[in-house]
């Protein structure tokens, strides 16, 4: 029996209120990550995958009122309701962040070395000198060649892949227990994407961190993650170990997504497989299953009540009554 999960989210709901509208980008989602584990959260834009991870840590745009309910526990400590000053202490310290676009995540007018050292000074109370030494260590850790010279460079002097390595070094500077990577390879080329994914996986194992990998790309999941949550329209459609979910997807949405990826054996010029219809716009919560209009298995009952996430077998949970109980029972 392993210890308690490092991050445990249960029944999280996020409501966003702007001057004009109210939306619910996250609607009753639960998941957990243990130390040394990587959880992939997969979904399309607007599925709530980013808000779900950022809102509890206070990373939301200004001008939006964020209302949270449910529970988010980091090392047993409840984050919801915690004052902003306390949450600020966690950001960068217990939780490291990696963002999609390394150029906008870095300060363009400060040297790489300073940007990494600053984190160590702030979160580990290091002297500037000790922090510089730590920066050098971190730059070596993320596999940057000629580390001493790189520390004196500015972000614009580096390529996209190197910048993302620097962002990873900054995220690691505060010795986080949890790393949240939001589309860390989306802005990179396939060749560099493979390098960065391998690096992330490597540091995560080496430092025994928990990692949440937020992505829209099923392709990056298989090599990096242990478990997966598939999000659709603010809710979890399917959850389980990667080895099971990617090989034997149960939820019609997960099946559709995986089926839509072109395969080697598809003949040239063959029609592309995809899902019909459009993903729903972010709006008020649905009464039934939000996937109903695009689903080939839907029965009338699907649009009446929200399908619960039920355990299928092993550790796989699926929110589809038709899959779980058959057409007739649903």
């Amino acid at each position, binding site marked *: 029996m392993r210890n308690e999960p490092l991050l445990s989210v249960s029944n999280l709901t996020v409501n966003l209120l702007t001057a004009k509208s109210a939306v619910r980008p996250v609607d009753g989602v639960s998941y957990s990550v243990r130390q040394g584990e990587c959880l992939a959260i997969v979904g*399309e*834009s607007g599925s709530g995958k980013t808000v779900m991870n950022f809102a509890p840590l206070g990373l939301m745009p200004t001008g939006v009122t964020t209302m949270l309910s449910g529970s988010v526990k980091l090392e047993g400590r409840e984050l919801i309701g915690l004052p902003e000053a306390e949450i600020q202490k966690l950001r960068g310290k217990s939780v490291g962040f990696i963002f999609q676009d390394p150029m906008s995540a870095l300060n363009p007018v400060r040297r790489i070395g300073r940007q990494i050292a600053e984190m160590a000074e702030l979160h580990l109370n290091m002297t500037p000198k000790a922090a510089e030494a730590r920066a050098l260590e971190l730059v070596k850790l993320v596999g940057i060649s000629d580390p001493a010279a790189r520390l004196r460079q500015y972000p614009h002097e580096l*390529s*996209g*892949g*190197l910048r993302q390595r620097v962002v990873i070094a900054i995220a690691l500077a505060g010795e986080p227990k949890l790393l949240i990577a939001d589309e860390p390879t989306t802005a990179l*080329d*396939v*060749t*560099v*994407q*493979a*390098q960065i*994914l*391998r690096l992330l996986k490597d540091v995560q194992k080496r430092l025994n961190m928990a990692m949440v990998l937020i992505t*829209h*790309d*099923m*392709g*990056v*999941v*298989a*090599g990096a993650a242990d478990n997966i949550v598939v999000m659709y329209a603010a809710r979890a459609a399917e959850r389980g170990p*990667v*080895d099971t979910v*990617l*090989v034997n997807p149960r939820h019609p949405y997960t099946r*559709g*997504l*995986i089926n*839509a*990826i*072109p*395969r*080697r054996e*598809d*003949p*040239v*010029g*063959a*029609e*592309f*497989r*995809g*899902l*019909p219809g*459009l*993903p729903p*716009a972010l709006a008020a919560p649905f009464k039934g299953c939000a996937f109903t209009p*695009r689903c080939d298995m839907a029965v009338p009952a699907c649009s009446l009540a929200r399908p619960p996430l039920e355990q299928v077998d092993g550790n796989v949970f699926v929110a589809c009554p038709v899959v779980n109980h058959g057409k007739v029972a649903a």
Partner: protein
Amino acid sequence: MNLSPVLKVENLQTRFKSVQRGKFVHAVDDVSIELFPGEIVGLVGESGCGKSTLGRSIVGLEKATAGRVLLDGVDLSTLSGAALRKSRRALQYVFQDPYSSLNDRQTVGEAIDEALIIDGLRDPTARERRTKELLDQVGLVSVVKDRHTRELSGGQRQRVAIARSLAVNPRVLICDEPVSALDLSIRAQVMNLFLRLQKDLGVACLFIAHDLALVRQAASRTYVMYLGKIVEHGPSQELYDHPSHPYAQMLLASAPEVDPRIEKSRRGPLMIGEIPSPTNPPSGCRFRTRCPLAVDACAQALPPAISLSADHDASCLLAAELHRGSRSALAIQAA
């Protein structure tokens, strides 16, 4: 193919002045490609390899510094004024981001109407009929005509952008990453639209993308570009089955697998480093600085394109061996 190419690009070169004084960025360097009528052709490579600049130079969004672009055998640089504008209309560009390529303040109808007016269609009822026909072709219901483009989803906007470029009856579409800004579940819909347009209207399409699997399935032939040069070209199936340039081999091998059983056993090689600066490209073969098979001869001269089989060639001294499979860039790396 006995047909004559609808678009022929000969020894095209596009270079930009570098911020370093007296230096040039060689974005596209001596590239020749051909497109036959009704054919989808892929152009793949890493960012910074010059694939977008090539596309933009073909339609005249960038000024090529040397070389020729021939449309139906007519050199565009010999044309000017109305004749040039008319030829240019036959070459249309579909941009990556449908959020910035359309005017938010226009309705869908206005956006398409504008293209029709430029094409010289004066009669309003004829324009209306044509707008309806175009929306139908791209799979949009005609009620969207009165909606503002900002009200539409990404997939719908890209359809409007495509309808707009089809409005002037183009012979060739240059599509620059047309689906990478779209959500996974609707990419297939737009890809199928391209397949259908090619079948129904016979429009030739140069499909610029970094998603290799997508290109393989859509394109009958594929060009692989690296640092301003075409390094390999061939029928898609053949090229993907027998990549014969070390770069193509490594590029294809770096695409991730969705199936975890395959992915976890695939401790394959990784491409080392990143694409060098096009301001100062390496001498000889441009890939030699990252190539596991590079020898001294690679630095001496640019390797010629070696013909491997019908319509398949690669610019590498070892192309024949790589094609036969007696050597591989991947085997060396893994060792």
